[in-house]
């Protein structure tokens, strides 16, 4: 069954050559730098409070989607990623508010708590491949959400966690918080990109293509998977901590299955084979709902349908539009 799972992913990645990731990394970095600079300027050009807010949300989404991308690259789709965001958020809020530590303490504690949970649960669930991994992470996400709901003395239950302080008085203004969020997102994306283009990144690609084969040529399969899972969940916790201190209020629905699914959608819509994919997806999934603000329920329906269409006909996502276009022009060229 393991082989079925990996060949499925392999067929999905046919359009994007895996060997190209190293060569592409330099252009990728340049492109990302340009994008980051544009991003840093645009909200200031618009200079509207709402613009900063959207930009900050894009940054959080980008951290979440890119860290999930690391896990997806190993051929495992996790449906509990936003639950790990929640762990980071709640631990950070608890440490900062209830225990009275400064923001940095909360940030470190939130990140570490999320990583620690991943380290505990990872060795158990990462032995599963493909379908079972998806199912178990879905269950784990539900269970963590129930914990957020039921552990009222720590999390505040359904009422949520109130009055979380801003990281520093100056960051209470979204204008300045945006710089913090952008810096955090750039840092996370850079680390993810560096990991994927390193030796470990090649291990990851090998594991996705065939776990058995990777094992045979000496790739430490389970250790690499756990390492990637822990790093990704640490970033999720990091993003959660920042979110808690930005929104100043968190409650269980912020970290439910729909949010986890949104992170997966970002990866799928954008494309699961390059790091650019989740970034495109994050933009798309934050900006489009803003355009459809009056139709919250309808937009979920639309995203659901988009997900079906993309998975059925374009498993490479938007990042593979180029290839689809090339294919179409080549076909029409042959005809004429």
């Amino acid at each position, binding site marked *: 069954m393991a082989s079925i799972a990996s060949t499925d992913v392999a067929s999905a990645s046919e359009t994007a050559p895996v060997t190209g990731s190293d060569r592409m990394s330099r252009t990728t970095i340049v492109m990302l730098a340009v994008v980051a600079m544009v991003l840093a300027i645009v909200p200031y050009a618009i200079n509207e409070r709402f613009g900063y807010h959207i930009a900050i949300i894009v940054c959080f989404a980008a951290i979440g989607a890119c860290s999930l991308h690391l896990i997806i690259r190993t051929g495992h789709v996790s449906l509990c990623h936003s639950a790990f965001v929640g762990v980071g958020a709640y631990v950070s809020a608890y440490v900062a508010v209830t225990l009275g530590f400064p923001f940095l303490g909360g940030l470190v504690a939130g990140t570490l708590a999320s990583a620690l949970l991943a380290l505990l649960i990872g060795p158990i669930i990462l032995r599963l491949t493909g379908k079972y991994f998806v199912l178990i992470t879905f269950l784990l996400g539900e269970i963590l959400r129930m914990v957020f709901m039921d552990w009222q003395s720590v999390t505040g239950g359904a009422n949520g966690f109130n009055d979380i302080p801003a990281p520093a008085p100056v960051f209470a203004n979204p204008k300045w918080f945006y710089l913090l969020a952008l810096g955090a997102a750039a840092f996370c994306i850079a680390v993810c990109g560096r990991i994927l283009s390193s030796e470990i990144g090649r291990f990851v690609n090998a594991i996705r293509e065939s776990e058995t084969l990777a094992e045979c040529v000496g790739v430490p399969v389970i250790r690499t998977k756990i390492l990637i899972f822990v790093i990704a969940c640490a970033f999720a916790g990091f993003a959660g901590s920042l979110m808690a201190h930005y929104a100043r209020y968190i409650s269980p629905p912020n970290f439910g299955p729909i949010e986890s699914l949104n992170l997966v959608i970002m990866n799928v819509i954008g494309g699961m084979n390059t790091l650019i994919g989740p970034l495109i997806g994050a933009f798309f999934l934050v900006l489009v709902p803003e355009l459809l603000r009056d139709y919250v329920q309808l937009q979920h329906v639309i995203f*659901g349908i988009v997900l079906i269409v993309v998975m059925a006909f374009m498993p490479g996502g938007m990042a593979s539009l180029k290839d689809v276009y090339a294919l179409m022009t080549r076909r029409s060229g042959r005809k004429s």
Partner: protein
Amino acid sequence: MLTSPIVLGQIVVNGLSLSSIYILVALGFTLLFGIMRVVNFAHGEFAMLGGFSLYYLYAVFKLPWLLAIVLVPFMVALPALLLEWLVFRWFYQKMFQSMIGLLGLNMAMIYTALIAWDAFERNIPAAFDGIVRFGGIIAPIDRLVTIGISLLALAGFYLLMVHTRWGLAMRAAAQDVDIAATQGIDTRRIYKLAFVVAIGLAALAGALYGQIYSVSPFMGERPLFVAFVVVILGGMGSIPGAALGGVLLGFTESLLGTLYGGSVAAYASFGIVILLLIFRPWGLLGKPE
């Protein structure tokens, strides 16, 4: 507390009725996986549609309950063939894509239901009042009817799978689709048949479940959770495994739910899954990969 026959009887009757509903949900889920290699993340939503069908047929249009419950599977499964044509057929034999794509279907169905029916919960009035006493055990009649209906459906499923040519064809397709096709089995038709059977079972389970609790667009979450736990317990694609997993989960929930409350039962069932994954990751009756 366990020595009291009333509590014990309640646990047994609840356990049986929960188990039978869980088996109905999980059977369809595992059937779709076994034959088409499709992980149906939208399974809970078909159960939700079943719940709404019973609500409309019985509570709104006032049909006799037995007629309503028999109509429910057909009312959901036959129109669902349109979804099979639009969505599912693209994902046959593509496990990975099916999971993500059907998650999308799941979300689209929940929110379409939300637009159509709003979020509030509807109650289906009880069809049967009264209780039956066996010795010291007291059993409400509607729970017994739930168990009876599920057992009938399970028996029908068993007959279909074991004693008909269609069942034989489905089992052959589950083992190897290509070889089944070379033996002259029309796999397209078998897929459709398996789809109708699986969705019908889910709809029936949803109707019975909605009768016990309530009907709302979000009611599909719980059956989906249950289907996952059951198939992980029993082994995915294994039909006896679904039955065993359903019984285990139903009784665990009934016991812990009666003694300690609903959320403890949910934590415990997750704990059991984790323990199983440590010691037998391929499920109780599945085969090691």
